């Protein structure tokens, strides 16, 4: 949600400078993802508003109330004088439970034209295009108060009547906009109609027919509230997520309609002083009831693990303009109508805690004494893996997703729609893959294992599979563990013991080395050296002259002794990080190596 600093300042005259706002919000309200300065002298913050605060923070007034509350600053919330209005013959019928409130107001003698600069500056600052004064002012109120508003061209209504109801199945409807998109409605979609034809998809988008045009003289302002689940389902089904539907689907308080209708009327009057306002018709069958929450200082303290005083809690409540009553039992707050997220005492713990400041909470490691033990499956898995590595197997992990199986998933982001029914297939693929890389791995053969779940029609089962290129064995975890000899011992290593595996003899961390995607080349070299000479002398030469193209430790693959000389045969593996090596490049390196070996008095075979 893009929030303009200047817009906030109109609510909070004493707001601190923009550079202080981002951290204040991030550590006490919600994450500020970016801060951008515009060339019109404004600063725009992008707030990551999560579902619990989408009721009130998708509006500048909501964010202003938060900032003023956190800092204990005065907030100017104007109320708007009643506008002289004439009688109206507008009729509003709500024929669906999904509409919680509908306020309609006819305004005549308006002139569609450009919006005042202060409004376009604020709207453009948050990325909204200016269209005309009427469309802009409805947009303005939505980003200002969090209340979506729709304006209809009155002459498109066949009668001065609005009926809110569910659409007819397979009803076609053309949306407003240059693309002239036509959607097919269903009975689960709520629509705004004039009783004869559909004018808008409630809470989502208006129709092409009834939108505001440059010669519109009379309008109907709709300030309404709709059931969040209904709007969400419709918006999703039609793939039509709009700023309006986003707010409705997160639920808005119907009480916001009052202020929204007053403010938009006031702004229209300012822009069109000759406008004639009819009385507002308000259908509000089940008014939102007031909620109270009771909580105590000791509850807040034990939940957060702090010692907060009643005075500190009172200051926070006062700064936020909460109506509350305090007694010896604690506090009883009246929940502000826009705070649909506040229902139970732990909701107030968060309100108090984040204002108090989480950085003030002192960490305290608890003492834990339990009689329950680890789940035996954990112990079996640990034991199975220890047994397998002691037998020389290396652990692999393969994909659960396959292109065939007994349990199918829906709409995967890849082409593999089934869950594996065995581990063996994955192990086979792993062996084939690893065999291509035997020289890189410095191994003579591949021995791998996997412990994991498989999925069949009869359910989920944990299996153990292990093998090499000749043979793969797969069995259940239980059967594998039963087959482990009773004299096999192992222990669950401590974290310090485990982390020793990452360090070399000098206790230096050996980090993961990413491998090259380019092919490798191997070369074998066998050299006779005197029996008592250490073969390390050869390895030193290979490593020095192999350059950094030498990817792994030279690997001894053959040796034998004859007549006081030993032949050592090493395999050298070369690979570049950024290209495919040529034979010529490697031939050159081998020539250098051969020359050096000869110069040391050894015979190359």
């Amino acid at each position, binding site marked *: 949600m893009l929030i303009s600093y200047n817009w906030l300042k109109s609510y909070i005259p004493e707001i601190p400078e923009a550079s202080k706002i981002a951290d204040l919000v991030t550590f006490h309200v919600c*994450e500020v993802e970016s801060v951008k300065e515009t060339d019109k002298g404004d600063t725009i913050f992008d707030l990551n508003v999560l579902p619990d605060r989408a009721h009130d923070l998708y509006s500048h007034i909501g964010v202003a109330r938060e900032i003023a509350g956190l800092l204990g600053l005065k907030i100017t919330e104007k109320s708007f004088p009643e506008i002289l209005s004439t009688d109206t013959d507008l009729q509003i019928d709500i024929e669906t439970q999904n509409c919680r409130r509908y306020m309609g107001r006819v305004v005549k003698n308006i002139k569609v034209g450009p919006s005042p600069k202060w409004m376009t500056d604020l709207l453009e600052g948050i990325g909204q295009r200016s269209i005309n004064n009427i469309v802009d002012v409805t947009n303005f109120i939505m980003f200002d108060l969090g209340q979506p508003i729709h304006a209809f061209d009155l002459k498109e209504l066949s009668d001065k009547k609005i009926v809110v109801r569910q659409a007819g199945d397979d009803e076609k409807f053309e949306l407003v906009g240059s693309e002239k998109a036509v959607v097919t409605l269903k009975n689960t979609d709520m629509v705004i109609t004039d009783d004869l034809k559909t004018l808008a998809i409630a809470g989502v988008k208006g129709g092409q027919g009834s939108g505001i045009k440059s010669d519109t003289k009379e309008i109907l302002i709709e300030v309404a509230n709709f059931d969040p689940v209904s709007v969400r389902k419709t918006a999703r089904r039609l793939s039509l997520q709009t700023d309006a539907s986003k707010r409705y689907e997160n639920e808005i308080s119907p009480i916001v309609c009052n202020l929204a209708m007053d403010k938009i009327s006031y702004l229209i009057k300012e822009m069109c002083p000759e406008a004639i306002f009819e009385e507002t018709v308000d259908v509000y069958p089940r008014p939102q009831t007031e909620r109270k929450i009771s909580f105590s200082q000791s509850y807040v303290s034990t939940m957060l693990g702090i010692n907060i005083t009643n005075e500190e809690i009172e200051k926070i409540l006062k700064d936020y303009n909460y109506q509350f009553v305090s007694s010896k039992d604690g506090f009883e707050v009246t929940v502000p109508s826009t705070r649909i997220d506040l229902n139970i005492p732990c909701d107030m713990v968060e309100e108090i805690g984040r204002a108090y400041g989480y950085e003030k909470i002192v*960490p305290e490691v608890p003492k834990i004494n339990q009689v329950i033990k680890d789940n035996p499956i954990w112990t079996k898995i640990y034991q199975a893996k220890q047994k397998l590595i002691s037998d020389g197997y290396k652990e692999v992990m393969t994909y659960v997703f396959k292109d065939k199986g007994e*349990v199918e998933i829906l709409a995967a982001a890849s082409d593999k729609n089934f869950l594996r029914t065995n581990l063996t297939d994955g192990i086979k693929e792993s062996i084939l893959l690893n065999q291509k*890389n035997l020289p890189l791995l410095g191994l003579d053969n591949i021995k791998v294992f996997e412990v994991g779940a498989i999925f069949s029609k009869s359910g989920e089962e944990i299996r153990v599979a292990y093998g090499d290129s000749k043979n793969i064995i797969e069995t259940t975890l239980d059967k594998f563990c039963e087959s482990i000899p009773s004299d096999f011992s192992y222990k669950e290593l401590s974290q310090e013991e485990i982390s020793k595996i990452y360090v070399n003899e000098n206790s230096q961390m050996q980090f993961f080395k990413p491998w090259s995607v380019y092919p490798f080349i191997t070369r074998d070299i066998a050299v006779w050296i005197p029996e008592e000479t250490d073969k390390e002398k050869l390895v030193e030469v290979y490593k020095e002259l192999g350059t950094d193209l030498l990817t792994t430790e030279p690997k001894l693959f053959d040796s034998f002794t004859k007549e006081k000389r030993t032949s050592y045969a090493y395999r050298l593996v070369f690979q570049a990080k950024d290209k495919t090596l040529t034979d010529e490049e490697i031939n050159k390196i081998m020539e250098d190596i051969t020359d050096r070996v000869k110069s040391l008095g050894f015979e190359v075979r």
Partner: protein
Amino acid sequence: MVKKIVNGAKCKDFKNRTRLKSGSILFTKRLRNVNILTMQEYKKGSLHPITLIMNEAVSIFKDMGFVVELGPELEDEWHNFDALNIPKDHPARDMQDTFFLKDKEGFVLRTHTSNTQIRFMEKLINSGGQPPFAIIVPGKVFRNESTDTTHEMQFYQIEGLMIGENVSVANMKGVLLEFFKRFFAGENVDVRLRPSFFSFVEPGFEIDLNRGDRWIELLGAGMVHPNVLENCGIDSKKYQGFAFGIGLDRLMMMKLHVTDTRFSYQGDLRINQF
């Protein structure tokens, strides 16, 4: 006759051998034309780096007194969502990209190991037990999103759950700070809390970690929502506590400098570098 080395421990013929520093066996005698090939550390098995990281994490929490619990990967919606206060048709369910199953309505591949926390609490209450308790749940989880260097469709998490009469946010902070200090031993570790939202906790937090230079967003946590406790039969007026969840693949990338999470699940031994 010299026996071929297949598995050193089983080889019974120990004549004619020279034991080298590394402990492997080099046959120097050669009979007929049979060449006995040797390799250093021929018998070395190895664990996948994710297993190493998981075992490290589990060991630290067990040291603090936590106990390991495990659960199914294929789960019903009650245990994966509804019990966790994530209602159907609510934006909060969108916060996770879920794998639903064809022909098996009401089931999903679990999106977090929290399903197991629900199962644990239900089992505890059904067997006549009560809090306090502290468990950690490592396991594989699934998200239906496109893959890249830091995202895979299957990955590992470890979640913690501690419930008792006075378990607080201060305890949560203490446990996590202690965990990271030990996991990143020798570094200047600190944690900080920011307000956030998850359906199953209230208050909810994002927790950032600092290893001596900058802050990075690392995990979500919070005080378990009373609805979740009541859904499992636990009296939320008497008991309270925290839950948290950390991505193990992420920890592996941070500690071992693995550069791409997709390397882990190809069955590729080039990742077994430890």
